[in-house]
């Protein structure tokens, strides 16, 4: 999944956990309308999704019942080539996931479902076994084999097979792969450590390619062509401009209801909305708040928002004064009115938060409330911290997250309005800021900055490990207690006990306050009245589940 177009080397980021994170620093990029992933809590969409396949299987034979509807999708940015393993961006993932699938998949709400594997089990601590689905074919007609699955896992994880690919570590953790065996319709994966979330990782990552197809073709070809097992096969590829995929009739779950999908992109939110309203597109991403009513008032389309898997926060380096003080950090949390910012800047398209983990994730602590807005308490805490009169600077990227500058501006001015702290805002190009943030040395990172983080695995650790543990590549915190609590959770085999450990960790982090907790971003899609489609929790767009109206 995705870090974003800044393309930070993700392997570094994950070495501690030995587990991948589908962390999304900034998914779609482009202008202000950068979206999170959908995090639909799921009530409601399950019924639809099952039906998609059923409807198809009825008209399997000649396809006379199949529609000839084309669905247009306009995103923020196009792909960086069609190799499903050689990218780390949401946009590329949206495109390649039309044609490639993993062993496991997710429902729109994030629930894990079977995909190319029908069964999976943990054979022992460091071994997982997947049973492959029968009768699955690649778009070139060849049957999927266990060897293909084995090859794909090795291609992602092992430098000697796939070269250094940016998804290395996404399945079992960097350098943790301990042999993959294939045979008898089964793939057995060995890895170091317990890795309690190995199936969450496989459900989000690890698209399967055909071994012979990859080996027989060169990089250029693989990046311009597609040979997957997914519901759509490639019809047209115009790099940087447009990708057209068409229904793959022999798809194992029945042919798609829509005949083809045209995917294009515009970084300007107004262009995306214009395309939607001119009926040139059926699904557009990241409709900004000011455009919402224009879409709602139109007769051709409507707004379809979902809570995303992205959390927005202001991170404070633990080793820089005045942020060394827990009182001071808490003071900033009381000073910033995050609920008010969601209300006034985002028109309510967000949910204020008080812990690093989002509500629909494993490890979310229901007992932790966001910090209330209490400037007096904040001033008291600043006094107690001994840093009264502190002058600080908040750095923010320009236009990477929904309304990032406005949010940072509001937060900075609320902090600045405390009688005993002054706060300035420094607006920076995202690419420059992210280079500072992803530098290996904590000393080179900004002391105080706004950031957004997406987490496609729905597990608390995939945010906390990279951002808050001593060895996390993006960390701004070195705290022995946090490290110990994470390690304990990652070695706990019992899911319920682990969940409790993570909830305790989140409550602890709320008090420790390494961030000024801001909010969970919503993804706001514009959807044409011509189709029925529910947005997903993980930023992927799945026209396979769309139905013509």
């Amino acid at each position: 999944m995705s870090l974003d177009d800044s393309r930070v080397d993700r392997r570094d980021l994950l070495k501690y956990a030995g587990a991948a994170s589908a962390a999304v620093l900034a998914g779609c990029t482009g202008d202000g309308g950068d979206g999170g992933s959908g995090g639909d809590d799921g009530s409601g969409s399950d019924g639809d999704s099952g039906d998609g396949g059923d409807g198809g299987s009825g008209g399997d034979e000649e396809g006379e019942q199949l529609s000839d509807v084309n669905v247009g999708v306009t995103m923020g940015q196009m792909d960086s080539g069609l190799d499903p393993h050689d990218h780390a961006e949401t946009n590329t993932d949206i495109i390649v996931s039309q044609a490639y699938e993993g062993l496991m998949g997710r429902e729109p709400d994030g629930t894990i479902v079977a995909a190319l594997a029908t069964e999976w089990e943990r054979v022992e601590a460091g071994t997982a076994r997947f049973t492959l689905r029968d009768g699955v074919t690649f778009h070139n007609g060849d049957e999927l084999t266990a060897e293909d699955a084995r090859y794909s896992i090795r291609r992602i994880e092992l430098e000697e097979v796939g070269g250094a690919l940016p998804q290395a570590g996404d399945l079992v953790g960097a350098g943790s792969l301990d042999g993959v065996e294939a045979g008898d319709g089964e793939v057995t994966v060995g890895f170091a450590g317990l890795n309690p979330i190995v199936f969450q990782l496989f459900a989000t990552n690890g698209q399967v390619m055909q071994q012979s197809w990859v080996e027989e073709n060169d990089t250029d070809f693989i990046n311009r062509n597609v040979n997957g097992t997914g519901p759509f096969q490639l019809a047209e590829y115009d790099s940087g401009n447009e990708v057209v995929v068409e229904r793959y009739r022999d798809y194992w779950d029945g042919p798609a209801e829509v005949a083809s999908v045209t995917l294009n992109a515009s970084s300007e939110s107004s262009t995306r909305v214009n395309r939607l309203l001119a009926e040139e597109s059926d699904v557009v991403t990241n409709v900004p708040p000011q455009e919402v009513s224009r879409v709602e008032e139109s007769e051709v389309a409507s707004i379809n928002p979902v809570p995303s898997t992205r959390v927005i926060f202001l991170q404070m380096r633990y080793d820089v004064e005045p942020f060394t003080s827990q009182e001071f950090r808490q003071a900033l949390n009381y000073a910033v009115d995050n609920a008010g910012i969601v209300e006034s800047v985002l028109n309510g398209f967000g949910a204020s938060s008080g812990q690093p983990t989002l509500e629909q994730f494993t490890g979310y602590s229901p007992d932790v409330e966001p910090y209330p807005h209490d400037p007096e308490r904040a001033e008291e805490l600043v006094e107690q911290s001994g840093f009264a009169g502190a002058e600080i600077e908040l750095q923010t990227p320009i236009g990477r997250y929904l309304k990032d500058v406005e949010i940072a501006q509001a937060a900075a001015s609320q902090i600045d309005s405390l009688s005993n702290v002054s706060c300035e805002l420094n607006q920076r190009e995202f690419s420059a800021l992210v280079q500072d943030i992803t530098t290996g040395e904590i000393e080179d990172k900004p002391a105080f900055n706004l950031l957004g983080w997406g987490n496609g695995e729905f597990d608390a650790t995939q945010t906390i490990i990279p951002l808050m543990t001593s060895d996390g590549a993006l960390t701004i915190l070195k705290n022995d207690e946090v490290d110990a609590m994470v390690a304990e959770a990652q070695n706990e085999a019992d899911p319920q006990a682990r969940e409790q450990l993570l909830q305790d960790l989140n409550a602890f982090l709320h008090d420790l306050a390494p961030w000024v907790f801001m909010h969970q971003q919503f993804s706001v899609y514009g959807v044409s009245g011509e189709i029925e489609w529910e947005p997903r929790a993980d930023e992927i767009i799945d026209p396979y589940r769309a139905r013509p109206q």
Partner: protein
Amino acid sequence: MVSPRVVRNLKKEFRRSALAKVGLVLVVGVLLVAVFAPFVAPHNPTEQDLDGKQLPPIGFSKTVEETSSELVDGEVRTVTETTRIEADPQHPLGTDPLGRDMLSRIVYGARTSLLVGVLGTVLAAAVGVPVGLIAGYKSGRVDDALMRFADVSLAFPSLVLAVALIGLWGRAAVELPDPFVSAGLAPGMPATFTLPGTVIVVVGIVNWVWFARVARGEALSIRTEEYVKAARALGGSDRGILLSHVLPNAITPIIVLGTVQIAAIILLESALSFLGFSGTTLSWGFDIAQGRDYISSGQWWIAGIPGFAIMLSVIGVNLLGDWLRDALDPDIEGEGGG
């Protein structure tokens, strides 16, 4: 150089042409606004006020539909409300998405446009004129080499080359202290002014060749004049002859070209800012880019007004250029645009 005859011609043409008067008024107006920006601007152009964002200009108060949302049981519900947005006399041209005063931003944007336009032109002339003069005067190999290099230079469109160079170099900006603010005359205004250094250097680099061509042409024609031949026969140094005889004769077309170049560079700067390649956020092109996503939702002024500001200043400079050209009547090839 500026002989009494030239002044006479300028005056005569100025009296004759209404457009020249308009041009002068526009240019002097923009110049004054740019220089005295801290006094003209009613607010600090970077001061943000989220409670007063996207206010319309005076006379454009309006009723809008506003949609907000809330989370109910994990699902997002949207509510649409009708609200009336009144213009605020404090902000005659309205405010932008961050609640910054548009009028003040236009005023400060004039500084960026003019500074880049003038400094970029001066830089281009400072490189192009000497090279062109020497090439034309020396003629022969030097001239050939220059002209071939100029051909290569021309093969890269200014905007493309500028974008490529800025992309490779990154965008550096210089913070200049504002003299009025440091003297304490304009409290509350930005203490420094951001000069987009890379942009100036780049527009200089991509536009010098126009000056070189004109200077060369003039030098070529002048070098065969009797008085230049005489000066040379009398043992004058090349440098002396270039400075005292060739340059003064070439100055008129160079000035006219300079005017045209300022207009072209203002447009180029706005394009670069629009694409996000300038180093400052106080620029008309930057505001157009910011406001672009708000036009279709009805907030036309955020991108609309800076566009008019660019148009008026460039019209002013172009009219001034027409006046100079008609009065001085140099024979300039083409318009020498960027």
